[in-house]
């Protein structure tokens, strides 16, 4: 291969790497993400357990859960919160004494969700979460019920 062609390829590489670095720097600014998280309990019982004043899940959340092939008849909201996530400030969601979820923000509307059971990382889901879309982390709960952490991106 001629020396001239080699120099040409080298120059093109340098320009390409420089351009990539510049565009990455601008787009990789990790904008903080505003999220809303709902902790929801799925059950076949029409009422929450005695002593708990859980209300029925919002229509929007219930509709979202019913659109999935899940078996439960009723969904109750245990709690909800709005929070902002960034790479430097993860938010923790405690599901039970042994199970928690940690949410971090990343560039390009990425949410990075780490699930821990007994302190050990057991799962990770990293994906874009555009406004209006949902990421639901879920699992079994006592008495054949289910738990859900419903994450929704707020404007």
């Amino acid at each position, binding site marked *: 291969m001629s020396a001239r062609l080699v120099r040409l390829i080298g120059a093109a590489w340098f320009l390409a790497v420089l351009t990539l670095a510049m565009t990455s720097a601008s787009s990789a600014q990790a904008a903080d993400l505003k999220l809303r998280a709902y902790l929801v309990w799925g059950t076949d019982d029409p009422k929450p357990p005695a002593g708990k004043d859980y209300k029925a899940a919002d229509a929007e959340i219930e509709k979202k859960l019913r659109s999935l092939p*899940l078996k439960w008849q009723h969904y109750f909201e245990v709690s909800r919160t709005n929070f902002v996530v960034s790479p430097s400030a993860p938010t923790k969601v405690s599901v039970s004494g042994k199970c928690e979820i940690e949410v971090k923000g990343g560039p390009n509307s990425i949410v990075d969700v780490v699930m821990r059971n007994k302190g050990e990382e057991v799962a990770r889901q990293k994906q874009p979460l555009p406004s209006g879309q949902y990421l639901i982390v879920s699992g*079994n709960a006592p008495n*054949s019920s289910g738990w859900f952490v419903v994450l929704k991106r707020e404007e």
Partner: protein
Amino acid sequence: MDGWETVEPMTENAHSSAEDPALVKAAQKGDMTAFEELVVRHRDKIYARAYSMMRNEEEAIDLSQEAWVKGWQRLKQFQGDSSFGTWMTRIIINLCLDQLRKQKRQRTESIEELDEASGGVERQMPVVTVNPTAGLERGELRQKIDRALSQLSNEHRTALILHEFEEMEYKEIAKVMGCSIGTVMSRLFYARRKMAVLLADLRKQE
């Protein structure tokens, strides 16, 4: 092959009458015909295990052949702690588990599997009292079990196979499947109860 002695291969007559350890020793020294004899002796068992796990003939054949190639490559690591057949069975099980994990990542779960995973149904199944084997020829029973196994999810079927066919303890199954002992117990229980119901239903359909 690098580092392998050149030896006279055993004759075909010697192969068929040799015990497995002798064949393994010869194969470890590069005697391909000795290895071929081992393949002939154990191929049905290895294929059977692959088919039980994968439920697909073509996949089971491919994976069993891959297992034999891996067996040849790893032959020097075989110390004789277990029988050669058991050693090969562990290779095919691991290959099948890897393949099942790859398939799981690639597909969306079906509604039935989601329901099965979210659990609870096996606790409510009524106890089956009819004997699923009564009055059946071996071949007929095998067909029924075959159909029933295909209706279990990969995880439940694997737990059942590792326990009932491979005779592994809960602890070993947990290690191989990468889950807790509690999960192994739940899966095994579900699989057994579901099998009982399926076999009873298949009998009713006759």
